[in-house]
């Protein structure tokens, strides 16, 4: 892929539009949030969806939207620098150009959860793809029962969106519990795995909806803990990660059992994933 189209109206679905970086913000030591101006034809996104971001000469990677889906203005992506493409994306300055196609993939069932308690479980960077769902839940808070965010990460320094979480916690419309794997010195919060937070919140398991995103091992154990608590399989939703190329269900790169993660996912319900999650290297 050598060219970038001038607008998303391009007929070739594999041709990225050119988007301008308009802002950049450091979140933690290796995580940055990029703000890009919506390219022509951008019609918004649903929480949980992702874009393919492309840098000529380096490659193209899937990155979820992490901003408020209802807010006008730039599209936000929160990127962890782990390899060539993600590190180059995280280093982009305002004014730089980036290729963008999307939005792609399935969404968190936020509207469908109306009337229910909602348990959001995030691990590490998994909070980023969940943040748009949290914005939606907050915006229509009265439509839901209890809403809790249980967030586990490596250490206090790795907590994403910390100020925002603190503000939300003060406003009392979400219950927010954060735990880290290890802490030294002045950390006054919880230490331990994220599943230990579950018994601490009040919710009605059978009718709750759970949204889970994080490393796959974390999601497996989170799903087990939710099931043990009594949340039915179809009400537990995970966001899967697989390597991607086309992102439009054509190349088969992201195949996961009978599904393509780019098209049928990334968000899928546990009843659909159960058997496959336990199989190694699928």
């Amino acid at each position, binding site marked *: 892929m050598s060219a970038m189209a001038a607008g998303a109206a391009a007929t070739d679905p594999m041709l990225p539009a050119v988007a301008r970086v308009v802002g950049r913000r450091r979140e933690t030591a290796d995580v940055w949030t990029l703000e890009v101006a919506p390219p022509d034809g951008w019609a918004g996104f649903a929480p949980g969806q992702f874009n393919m971001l492309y840098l000529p000469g380096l490659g193209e990677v899937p990155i979820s939207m992490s901003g408020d889906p209802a807010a006008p203005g730039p599209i936000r992506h929160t990127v962890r620098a782990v390899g060539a493409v993600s590190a180059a994306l995280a280093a982009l300055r305002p004014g730089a150009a980036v290729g963008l196609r999307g939005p792609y993939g399935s969404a968190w069932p936020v509207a469908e959860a109306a009337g229910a308690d909602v348990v959001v479980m995030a691990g*590490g960077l998994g909070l980023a793809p969940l943040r748009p769902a949290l914005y939606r839940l907050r915006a229509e808070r009265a439509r839901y029962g209890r809403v809790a965010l249980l967030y586990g990460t490596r250490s206090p320094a*790795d907590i994403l969106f910390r100020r925002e979480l603190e503000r939300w916690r003060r406003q009392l419309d979400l219950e927010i519990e954060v735990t880290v*794997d*290890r802490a030294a010195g002045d950390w006054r919060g919880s*230490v331990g*795995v994220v599943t230990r937070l579950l*018994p601490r919140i009040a919710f009605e398991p059978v009718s709750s909806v759970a949204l889970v995103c994080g*490393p796959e*091992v*974390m999601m497996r154990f989170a799903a087990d803990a939710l099931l043990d608590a009594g949340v039915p399989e179809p009400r537990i939703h995970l966001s899967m990660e697989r390597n991607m190329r086309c992102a439009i269900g054509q190349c088969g790169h992201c195949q996961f059992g009978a599904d393509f993660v780019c098209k049928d996912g990334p968000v899928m319900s546990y009843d659909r994933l159960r058997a496959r999650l336990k199989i190694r290297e699928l």
Partner: protein
Amino acid sequence: MTVETLERYILEHRFFEGLEPAFGSLIRGCARNVRFEAGQYLCREGEPADQLYLVRHGTVALEISAPGRGALTFQTVHEGEIVGVSWLVPPYRWTYDARAAELVRAIALDARCLRDKAERDHDLGYELMKRFVPVLVERLHATRLQLLDLYAPPA
């Protein structure tokens, strides 16, 4: 605090949920009500494990100190949970420090008293085991996940 209140606290604690009231009064004989200010230690690594604590309020940080690195918290224990499993198995010694991270109210159970009662009354002993073993298994499982360092940057 009256013995009745103490017994009620024991029976209402999540750790003893569903316990037969008769056992409650046996356990109460080993119990006392305690309180720790923020920063006080419930126990210190290496000391004899002669107590265990049912946390009723507040947060306890379980820590290991390493030279040059200070105290590292590997787990926090909260309302409805317990501090102390070392009292169950010889040599009955604490293997970590437990520090009150904020005001902590707890029921302290005398370990020797509890061991003696469990030895005499195996039904009580079995009830205790059924409650302590899951805590041990859960901590082992949590330790394994923490060792995996799931949220670390990929190597």
